[in-house]
């Protein structure tokens, strides 16, 4: 059974079709890059997988369940925007997550906090945008989830911090899990992804393992992306 199975998925915003009859199967044990230009349907697809958008047509199954209560137990989702109360301190947010998610690893969270050089007593409102994103990444990655869905996880941080975040993402990732990362910073993630999905106008343009695609087209994934979407 595929970890994620999508059949004929369609998602509309009024007359605008964000996802157009998309079918896809993803298995555990890999990091998948979801790339495409703005408006290609990346965030819409991830929101559906994270059970944050149920207004769609078609079939979506996460470990055999429709997105909802059961899928929320196994999916750790990072949205592309701030989503936590800014009045809380980093340590309070970690405690909050520990209380709500049974698979949350508090020790791992505090270790990542140290790795990111963040102060536990610092409030989110006192942090810079990049620091806030780091907190959100560590919260998402500190769950021992079966599926990680990350929407633009490194877009707001400086290049040096990106490397630290990416390293911590890989370190915190179990080999049995599945990670789907959406980004347009392909250069940064090219080396960590096992396969890639190129999305355009809500449809899959190219999908395959990164090694196969590099060999087939004789280009890096980033060069291929530029060639296709220029």
């Amino acid at each position, binding site marked *: 059974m595929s970890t994620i199975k999508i059949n004929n998925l369609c998602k509309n915003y009024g007359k605008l079709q964000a996802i157009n009859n998309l079918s896809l199967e993803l298995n555990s044990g890999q990091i998948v890059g979801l790339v495409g230009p703005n408006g290609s349907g990346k965030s819409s697809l991830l929101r559906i997988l*994270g059970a944050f958008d149920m207004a769609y047509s078609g079939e979506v199954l996460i470990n055999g369940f429709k997105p*909802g209560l059961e899928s929320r137990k196994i999916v750790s*989702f990072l949205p592309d925007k*701030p*989503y936590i109360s800014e*009045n809380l301190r980093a340590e309070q947010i970690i405690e909050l997550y520990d209380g*709500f998610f049974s698979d949350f690893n508090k020790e791992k969270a505090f270790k990542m906090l140290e790795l990111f050089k963040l102060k536990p007593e610092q409030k989110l409102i006192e942090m810079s945008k990049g620091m806030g994103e780091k907190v959100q990444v560590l919260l998402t990655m500190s769950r021992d989830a079966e599926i990680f869905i990350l929407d633009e996880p490194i877009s707001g941080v400086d290049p040096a911090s990106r490397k630290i975040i990416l390293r911590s993402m890989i370190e915190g990732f179990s080999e049995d899990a599945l990670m789907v990362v959406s980004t347009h910073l392909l250069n940064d993630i090219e080396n960590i992804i096992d396969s890639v999905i190129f999305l355009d106008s809500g449809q899959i343009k190219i999908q395959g393992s990164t090694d196969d695609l590099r060999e087939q087209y004789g280009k890096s994934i980033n060069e291929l992306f530029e060639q296709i979407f220029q």
Partner: protein
Amino acid sequence: MFSKLYKYQIKELWFIARYFYLAMTGTILIGLFISETRIPGVVQFFNTLLLIGFIICGIAIIIFTITHDYQNQQGKRSYFFRSIPAKESVIIGSRLSYYLTYYFATVIVLAIGIAIFTISHTAINMMLPFHIAFSIIKDIFFQTKIIGMLLFIIVYAVFHQVISMMFAITIGSHARLKSLGIGGPILVYFLHYVAMQILTLISMLFIPISIKLPENPDTGFEFRIVFESMMPEMSKLFSAQSNEIKYIGIGFIFTTFIVWIIMAIWIYKCSKNKISLN
């Protein structure tokens, strides 16, 4: 999970609400201090200002209660709140309890504050000591039937307001209304309000259960429940056969209760199957 969700929502608003409750307590204490000076003009002027400030603080808490729930359901905190693996009934139950906690707490503080302001105002106006002013007001308001009726009205109004707000936020944030942003819940609340007014009026007029008002006002606040509709009373009033209303229809209590159940089911289904965050 229910208690965790409930505590989270309560704590989240407490960051702001505590300052308003503190301000409300402060206005009461300052009001009492000013009243103690017993200078009629000064006391009335400052106590009126303080009373306005006191009520504004109460309204602000209610507004923040609603906006915080909106933030959890559709706003910037929704991605955290909606990622929590809790049953929909637990989520709705915790929201309801959160609303009721802050609504009742605010209503109680408002009631105590207004009572204190009224007593001090009466004492100054009539040049009486506070304890005599209190006994005068007690005689007027502290009758079992009035207290019972006031409590019923408060509980009814709070429940109605809470369910209406949850309904407006949940339904107004989904499907086509989603594109309206905060305008969606406002539109749903307005439409629901108009519909409820019409339904309440129809229920008062046609459902045969009413409160019969006392014919002689000097007998005090006496009323009894009769199984008559209000419509014949209104017909007499409009055809100028009578110039007073003896019955007030209370059938709306039953129809409202049915509407609450329908709204609760609607909230549950929409929240479970039609969630769509921005």
